[in-house]
């Protein structure tokens, strides 16, 4: 066809649905349309959160009567006061922090251990373990709701932090990530250490682990997100009101625990605060999250 100029106008078409027409449209038009579409979609994605934060500063009546208005008629922090002073929200926050930190540290430790073993250590049955991990990942969590409760009960750890934390330490996906990373490290460094007489644990701790910081950070991000946002496990692991985490507490709020009536500012404030830690983590580690092609899946 045409031996067109070397530099082709990049924005000749949208390249997707052809919405902005064929390649004959001048560059600027289609570029503008593309931007408009993108911005419109971005607004749809971001606006709900904006409304959420703004509404949390409204009064109950204002939130119910005029939900579309972004700016509150009267600014009030009543919802936040109620949340922090008259409910168990600080306790929930504390519990979530405890569980999340423990699970994240635990997963980092266990996943890097297991990942290293699968990648570098030759032991009988390694293939079987690997296959087992794959098979286990296929079990849908919902099947485990009831039986995990039964096991936790049998082990006698029901209604303790142990029940909240320990079952979450199993993370086959994290093991695979670490395994993949360790396999990409040249073995020469480890060989050198081994020749010097270092044992497997020593090699792992002092030589390989420091080099694995990027992958470890990935695990930290994924683990933090997974345990902070976990709900169904916490429902079945305990019912002690002192062990309620943020997800469970806010879910209770949503079903109207703090007395009847629509208290939107209160619920939205709780949901907003709950989102802040993961959002901060997200913004700080954006690039790293974006580069991980395996990620957390929301049902």
């Amino acid at each position, binding site marked *: 066809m045409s031996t067109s100029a070397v530099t082709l106008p990049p924005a000749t078409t949208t390249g997707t649905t052809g919405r902005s027409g064929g390649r004959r449209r001048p560059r600027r038009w289609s570029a503008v349309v593309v931007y408009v579409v993108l911005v419109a979609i971005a607004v749809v994605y971001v606006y709900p959160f904006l409304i959420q934060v703004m509404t949390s500063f409204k009064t109950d009546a204002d939130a119910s009567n005029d939900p579309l208005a972004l700016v509150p008629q009267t600014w009030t922090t009543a919802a936040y006061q109620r949340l922090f002073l008259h409910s168990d929200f600080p306790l929930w926050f504390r519990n979530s922090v405890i569980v999340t930190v423990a699970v994240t540290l635990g997963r980092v430790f266990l996943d890097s251990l297991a990942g290293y073993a699968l990648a570098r250590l030759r032991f009988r049955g390694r*293939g*079987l373990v690997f*296959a*087992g991990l*794959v*098979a*286990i990942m296929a079990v849908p969590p919902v099947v485990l709701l009831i039986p995990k*409760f039964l*096991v936790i*009960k*049998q*082990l*006698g750890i*029901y*209604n303790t932090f142990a029940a909240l934390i320990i079952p979450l330490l199993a993370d086959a996906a994290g093991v695979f990530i670490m395994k993949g990373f360790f396999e990409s490290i040249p073995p020469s460094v480890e060989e050198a250490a081994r020749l010097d007489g270092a044992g497997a644990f020593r090699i792992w701790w002092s030589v390989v682990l420091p080099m694995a910081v990027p992958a470890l950070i990935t695990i930290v991000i994924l683990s933090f997100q997974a345990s902070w946002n976990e709900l169904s496990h916490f429902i*079945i692991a305990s*019912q002690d*009101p002192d062990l309620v985490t943020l997800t469970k507490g806010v879910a*209770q709020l949503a*079903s*109207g*625990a703090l*007395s*009847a*009536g*629509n208290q939107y500012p209160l619920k939205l404030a709780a949901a907003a605060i709950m989102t802040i830690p993961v959002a901060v983590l997200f913004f700080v580690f954006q690039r790293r999250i974006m580069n991980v092609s395996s990620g957390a899946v929301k049902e």
Partner: protein
Amino acid sequence: MNRRTTRRRTIAALAGAAGILALTACSGGSGFSDSTSTAQATSTGGGSLRVLIGSSGDAETAAVKSAVADWAGTSGTDATVSVASDLNQELSQGFASGQPADVFYVSADAFQGYASNGSLLAYGDQLKAKDDFYPTLVDQFTYDGKLYCAPKDFSTLALIINTDDWSKAGLTDADVPTTWDQLTTVAKKLTTDGRKGLAFSGEYARVGAFMAQAGGTMTNDDGTQATVNSPENVAGLTYVRGLLNSGDAAYAATLGTGWGGEAFGTNKAAMTVEGNWITGAMTSDYPDVKYKVVPLPAGSGGKGTLQFTNCWGIAADSKNQGAAIALVEHLTSTDQQLAFSKAFGVMPSVQSAADGWKKLYPEMTAFIDSASFAQNTVNAKGASDVITDFNAQLEGLAKGDPQKILDSVQTNLQAVLDQDK
């Protein structure tokens, strides 16, 4: 998936099975024996009591907490109160885990389930004030011939009317509806733009009152036959459907509210059908609304309403049942029950407190007077599922067929009753 992976999976599964046998062995001695507690001996080990309640609001929580604290002070046994966000779920989990609360609310519809699987202690005979309870309430909580738990209070449904809207519509005391036709007329007069004359939650616990007014019941007297699809019940549902389609009445959910009280308090409706608990909600959430309480009108079968009651259950697995019984006796004493009534409006379950209640609430006598023609809600074991399904079908009543709805509930309820025999 290739054969290799499948074989590995099998091996993994077998390894798991081996593991579980090992686990059984080591957990066998951990004391999870299957004792069913029909033993009359109560445990009197020391230790604090845990009380679990399903509260209707801040008023109830505060009242129960202070009553329990009083008792703990005088008796020397520590006791703490927790509010459940989902009482039945937390109770179930508690029983299954072997660590239930010691004292807790048991609703009438869940009662038989817990009584039959041995989760509850049958302490009714050990109560000193056993004969003071209303007989219908004792019936609700008797299983296998034994009174399992002390009724803690009860409420009936009545008609709540917004007095400002009432007078603005030109209505007087003489217009208070006593028949279905009058109710229809009054609802029409009270309907304006943006406000319905009557609103109530779309569930059996409210619509059932109309079925009772038509003269229908859900089961026969000894609870062995379901009588759901009787012509009387059909008449009751048909009347409700007429109300909904007339435009003068609506379900609370259709108006965007969570329950009848919210629709009433936010003036989306001028009247509602609710029970005693609405008084607490009105005082705390909608203090500016002036209202009066009148008995529900009589239908084609005479007067009728529903009554609701809970009891104080004591766990069979509780370690300090003696103290628990003492606590329950304190909580059901005449004075304490009147204190609860003052706090959140419920009616005492002991007959000796009836006069005291009428003196406290002269404007609410409609509630306690309705007790004479009130029907118990269905409490057969497994019936709560049937009621949930009934409620689901009631949501479509406006366009649905009452006979078909009741026929399906009849089938379901009969199946449940047959299983319980």
